[in-house]
């Protein structure tokens, strides 16, 4: 990136704010649909951060895979199974949440302290003509095995997901005619009322 230092700092702050806010939204908002849409915003701001880190290819991949595929998939699933019914309350739910929050904040503090106190051997940023060429060289030389493994993993995941989500070809043991009839009843016109 050939942006000025000031521009970079400003965009970092903006992106960080967006990221934190949307991530908080994902976790805290009661509406799962909003949470899912905010997840998309979160992914996009992460992609922006990647751009600040001179990783244009990974940023594009992030947008393509996370926003274009994972997030759409999640939204798809939510809209298919969007059951609008309150969960049964569990005892000590709030206490659990509070304890978790304290632990998480503690973890964050711990990590921040570690980050700030550790001496990172920061080296000056070498300018690479094209990150993509570099990445390609890595993929096809020293990281060839993991690359192939990843493709196998994707294939396995694809097949696994299809098998898991596939409809059973045979109907359930329950005779379908009986089991369905109750579901088929129309919401707006119950049969007994229609006959009166």
């Amino acid at each position: 990136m050939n942006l000025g230092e000031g521009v970079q700092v400003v965009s970092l702050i903006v992106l960080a704010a967006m990221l934190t806010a949307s991530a908080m939204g994902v976790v805290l908002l009661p509406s799962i649909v909003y949470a899912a849409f905010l997840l998309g915003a979160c992914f996009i701001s992460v992609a922006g951060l990647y751009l600040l880190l001179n990783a244009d290819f990974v940023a594009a991949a992030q947008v393509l895979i996370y926003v274009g595929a994972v997030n759409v998939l999640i939204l798809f699933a939510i809209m298919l199974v969007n059951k609008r019914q309150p969960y049964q309350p569990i005892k000590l739910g709030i206490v659990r949440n509070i304890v978790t929050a304290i632990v998480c904040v503690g973890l964050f503090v711990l990590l921040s302290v570690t980050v700030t106190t550790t001496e990172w051997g920061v080296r000056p940023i070498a300018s690479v003509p094209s990150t993509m060429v570099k990445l390609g060289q890595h993929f096809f030389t020293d990281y060839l095995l993991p690359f192939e493994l990843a493709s196998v993993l994707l294939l396995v995941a694809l097949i696994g997901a299809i098998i898991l989500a596939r409809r059973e070809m045979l109907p359930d043991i329950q005779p379908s005619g009986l089991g369905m009839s109750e579901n088929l009843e129309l919401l707006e016109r119950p049969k007994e009322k229609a006959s009166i």
Partner: protein
Amino acid sequence: MGGIDLQRSLVEVLTGAGLSSGAAKAIWMPLPMILIVLVVTVGALVCTWLERKISAAAQQRIGPEYAGPFGILIPVADVAKLVIKQGTPPAKSDPLLYTLGPAIVFISVFLCFLVVPFGQNLLISNIGTGIFFVIAISSIAPIGLLMAGYASNNKYSLLGGLRAAAQSISYEIPLALAALAIAMMSNSLSTIDIVSQQADYGLLSWNILRQPIGFVIFVIAALAECERLPFDLPEAEEELVAGYQTEYTGMRFALFYGGSYANLVLAGMLVSILYLGGWELPFPIDQVGDMLGIAPSTAWWQIITAMLGITAILLKTYFFVFTAILLRWSVPRVRIDQLLDLGWKFLLPIGLFNLLLTAALKLALPSWFGG
């Protein structure tokens, strides 16, 4: 080669007028963006006019007639009407998402034009990820469609949004595969490199001759991504009334409408860049210049070639648009399962095969397939 560098000339003019070079660059920065947004908007509006006129001609009608010569002002009237029209969100809709949905679709389409060149130097930024960037950004649009479908509080809209998401996910892969084969041949993802690799022998070096299978895949997938008629299931009028747009009026609808036509223009430009040689003419213009004895750096010659280039790419784009429109008014709509079958069981394997073939040919005939 090289053509004219507008940025440099403008900056030179401004610094000559006494501005610092930083300020001159700052003045330059927004200009191409505004220009591109304007050009794309006009292009999309021309598309809507073409859609009306071509459909009318194909149906033995006249089409818009009285608004300007040949009804050319009808898109302006459309936009004016939609802008003035009151937007009425349906009851119990989700007002925030309802407004955000069309905006996301619109923005994602226009962002794609960031890397689409109109000429050798006529693009906003020549980033290395080029065509990959377009594919990545255009994958954001389904989120907007899902948002619109969900927020409309209408079952037709929801079904339309879900269909749009499913469709665009499944057709992105063949699209990317076809583009990948091209990238493999030109050794770059950058749109500029892809075009300049097709420049040598005029018509004979266009990618459509080297990638006929890829061309077919890309065109089909691009039509599906644009939700044009054989694949316009998300807004299928006979089935889902208007799909995710059912509840939209006014400016919000205008965003969807303009977005979809801008998307069509984008698809046309991508097709012409990837397969039809972009701004290159069917004959190598530089050699013509050589023959006429004009030095390539002559100013007026550069301007002429640039103009010819822009005309060429626009003609190619609008040829694609014309074909898409004529196709829309000639064929029926596929069913959702047939659509997904076509995407996953036909285009995907063929696309993979095409990729393999391209790689093999590249090894076998490096001189022809960009070794």
